[in-house]
């Protein structure tokens, strides 16, 4: 789960990580009020759950309340990476002497949390990792829920901070690690962590939480922003389906994430465009299949639907009954291409044959048929 910068700042502040003063505004007038209270130049920053907002024009400096109001008006009219900007952060602008990067994340290869630090703050760490990996310093943490004492970060941070600031930087990183361990974050980032006229400050705040641990952090779970997922993705989640909308016209209903990804890859390879990723999960019942069909047909522009099921725990006859139920309940279903194999596939084929549906056995052939069906539907329009 992602949260906004202003929400992450609240968690930083609660941990004693120093920040420039500021607040969040939902209108240009509120932004002007905040700027007036902060006295002097401010930064106005779009609050969106996506990176790259600077490049998209979502971050502006303002000398005072009137400029802040104008900047907020412009930024609140933007869409960044598909998200409409609904709030801006207005924070005191600081004179920056040097910028560093501090981050804590999960290193899959080492199976540990790892602290990342770099003298090249402000830059996206991924860009830096690709272009100048020697500028990145890392420290893998011992497994456990207790953060190392600040001294444990001295070797990591000593080359990045002046001696007089090193202790403070170590304390902040220790607090950031504590925040990650106590709240099951999968990422916490201060970029840039800057030496300013007001001392060392976190000029940005980014936190991502582990979805699997949210139920034990109800306070964090409440911070969820509805725009993180589209209404259809939220609906899918409620129905026990794993769904991601894509921009094509061939709907996919598949069991298992790996096979679902492969199905959309094969559609693309055959010259078609998948409309979605959808994993119906292991224990599927006819109702779940109906929900999947409803989800696909709720969006516009689905011209064919490919059902690809490899029955293991999933029983193909359940899927077949779900398909027939969907044909009954949903008007004007697009053409279906059905591929069922594995557990109870024979019964499934019999059920479908009785209703006049044919099934493919071979995956490549089914994909080709779906691509052809979508193309034919397009020609008719």
């Amino acid at each position, binding site marked *: 789960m992602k949260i906004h910068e202003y929400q992450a700042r609240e968690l930083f502040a609660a941990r004693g990580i120093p920040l420039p003063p500021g607040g969040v505004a939902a209108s240009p007038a509120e932004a002007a009020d905040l700027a007036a209270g902060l006295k002097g130049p401010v930064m106005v920053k779009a609050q969106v759950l*996506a*990176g790259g907002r600077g490049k998209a024009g979502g971050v502006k400096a303002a000398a005072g309340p009137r400029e802040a109001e104008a900047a907020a008006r412009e930024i609140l009219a933007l869409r960044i990476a598909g998200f409409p900007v609904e709030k801006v952060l207005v924070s005191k602008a600081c004179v920056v002497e040097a910028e560093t990067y501090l981050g804590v994340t*999960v290193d*899959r*290869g080492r*199976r*540990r*949390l790892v602290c990342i630090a770099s003298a090249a703050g402000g830059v*996206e*760490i*991924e*860009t830096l*990792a*690709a272009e100048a990996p020697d500028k990145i310093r890392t420290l893998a943490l011992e*497994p*456990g*829920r207790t953060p190392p004492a600040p001294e444990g970060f001295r070797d990591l941070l000593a080359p990045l901070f002046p001696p007089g600031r090193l202790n403070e930087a170590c304390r902040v990183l220790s607090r950031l690690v504590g925040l*990650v*361990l106590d709240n*099951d974050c*999968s990422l916490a980032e201060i970029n840039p962590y800057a030496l300013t006229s007001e001392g060392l400050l976190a000029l940005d705040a980014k936190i991502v939480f*582990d*979805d*699997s*641990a949210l139920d*034990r952090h109800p306070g964090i779970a409440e911070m969820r922003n509805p725009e993180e997922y589209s209404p259809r993705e939220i609906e899918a989640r409620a129905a026990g389906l*794993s769904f*991601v909308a*894509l921009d094509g016209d061939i709907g996919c209903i*598949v*069991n*298992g*994430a*790996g*096979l*679902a*990804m*492969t199905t*959309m*890859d*094969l*559609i*693309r*390879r055959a010259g078609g465009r*998948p409309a979605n*990723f959808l*994993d119906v999960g292991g224990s599927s019942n006819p109702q779940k299949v109906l929900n999947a069909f409803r989800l696909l047909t709720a969006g516009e522009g689905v011209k064919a639907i490919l059902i690809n099921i*490899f*029955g*293991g*725990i*999933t029983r193909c006859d359940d899927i077949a009954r779900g398909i027939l139920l969907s044909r009954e309940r949903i008007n004007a279903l697009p053409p279906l291409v059905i591929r069922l*194999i*594995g*557990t109870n596939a024979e019964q499934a084929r019999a059920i479908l044959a009785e209703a006049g549906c044919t099934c493919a056995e*071979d*995956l*490549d052939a089914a994909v080709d048929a779906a691509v052809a069906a979508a193309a034919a539907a397009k020609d008719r329009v």
Partner: protein
Amino acid sequence: MSILIDNNTKVIVQGITGRDGAFHTAAMLAYGTRVVGGVTPGKGGQQVCGLPVYDSVREAVDSTGATCSLLFVPARFATAALKEAAAAGLKLVVCITEGIPVLDMIECAHALKQRGARLIGPNSPGLISPGQAKAGIMPGDIHAPGAVGVISRSGTLTYEVVRLLTAAGFGQSTCIGVGGDPIVGSSFTDLLPLFEADRGTRAVVILGEIGGEEEERAAAYIKESMSTPVVSFIAGRSAPPGKRMGHAGAIIAGGRGGPEAKLAAFAAAGVPVAESPEQIPVLLTKILS
């Protein structure tokens, strides 16, 4: 020949009295696996599929001599159950459970390693040595004994590929699902050496997917240390960045985990990458002829 499990491996099932645990215990017994008992705290003394249920792993191990455990324990209790299995001296622990918090898993994976237990999963379909034994939820009948090792990050995609392998006459030595989570007990690079050392494995199929850098590490290992030929496939090549594709581990985030780097790494290691599952047996035929 096979790795990790065979027809002598004695298996217990943690969570045997649950719906999934009981169902798959029956399926494993039907496949010929030596399932010797199960564990559900508070339900000791009961029977499932004619097998004794114990209150603790320790009791189960003492009574049956099991060396492998398969877990169907709900996520909330899973890490405690995993540690209990390792503390009781089990050498192979297979975790089907999904949804275990990542930071819990970091701690748990290290604890098991310290105890000398090999962990497969979590969020894994398990493993099977065809014709001998299966500790997992995969359908047994699509497999055939043979000389191709399969390691994968997914479930049904593996079934798809195994079915194609069997149909093309390529039986399997052992097929392992490493699990779809960011932190898993055994990665491709932990398992490839076992296949390399297994005289019954003549080729290995790696079924990777987007997210993480495990395929890149596997490619580096293959280049350095493997003489057994390897063929691969990568799922999710058309996935957009920033979207989690079902598996918690399958996401292209912050420029990492995309397919390009994986394809390049396999190319550099001389590992052919199939464009579709149906190409995998074709590539194997080429490589083994």
